[in-house]
């Protein structure tokens, strides 16, 4: 009886440990759409942040950027010629020169084009 109980405890512990380690290893990706933005700035302001410091606090954070659409592609929108926002889905229902607000994850500064890049974007309005 005692032996069986011991075995039962061991099995339970193993199940619990593997449950938590599985959840740790295969934890979900961040959901940028539902994250609260760390800052809300214009395209030019975000670019300025990266000019002052190569890795400002907003790197890898969710940010909200607003401004005029200066370039438009099937999967990307450029705001104020300074922030390139890429979308996982096709961009629809917007036009060049529209005023727009976009939420996404800031991935860094690109000196080839002098722009800041954002991925996993969603249009706020």
């Amino acid at each position: 009886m005692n032996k069986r109980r011991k075995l039962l405890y061991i099995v339970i512990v193993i199940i619990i440990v593997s449950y938590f380690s599985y959840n740790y290893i295969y934890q979900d990706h961040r959901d940028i759409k539902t994250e609260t933005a760390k800052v809300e700035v214009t395209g030019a302001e975000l670019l300025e942040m990266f000019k002052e410091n190569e890795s400002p606090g907003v790197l890898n954070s969710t940010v909200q950027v607003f401004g005029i659409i200066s370039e438009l592609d099937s999967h990307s929108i450029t705001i104020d010629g300074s922030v390139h926002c890429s979308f996982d889905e096709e961009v629809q229902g917007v036009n060049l020169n529209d005023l727009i607000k976009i939420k996404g994850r800031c991935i860094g500064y690109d000196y080839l084009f002098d722009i800041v890049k954002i991925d996993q974007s969603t249009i706020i309005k």
Partner: protein
Amino acid sequence: MRNRVIVFLYFFSVFISVNAQNKFTTKSGELNFEASVPSFVEVIAKNKNVSAILLDNGDFAILALVNGFRFKVALMEEHFNENYVESVKYPKTTFSGKILDFNVSDLSEKEITYTISGVITLHGVDRSLEVPVSIIQKNNSIVLTSNFVLKPEYFNIKIPKIVNNKIAEEINVSVSFNLTKLNSLDYE
């Protein structure tokens, strides 16, 4: 007098067209790498926001933001950024070089293989690289693709012992750029 102005304008325009260097660019190129080991979880990362600029003399530059690499497993992405490539300290990886014997007028829908030679910078370490690239021209764009192998040790990236047997020693890198023409005169 008027004729002189016309002659001047004529030569001036010829001068411009000779000097205008064509630029082919993209901000959404793809750079993927795979370091999977059979029978373990696959290690694949994709970055679809890679910038590249090609000049018609063959000069070629690439910039990939390290934070832009996305993995299937979220924890892998976190470890890659925090422990392996240290993306806060080294937020970008770049390549700058030249496509040898490149001539835009040779391009067609038939694939041509060139050699590209240059320097790749990753994790603060420079390393020279010479690999083949395939190029085709489709309508108004130039499609450039390449596959090559890199090793983490080239860039002073240390893989912890505990995961050593789950990450391949040789990393297969593949790049693909769909470059569209941008005239340097209206670039600035």
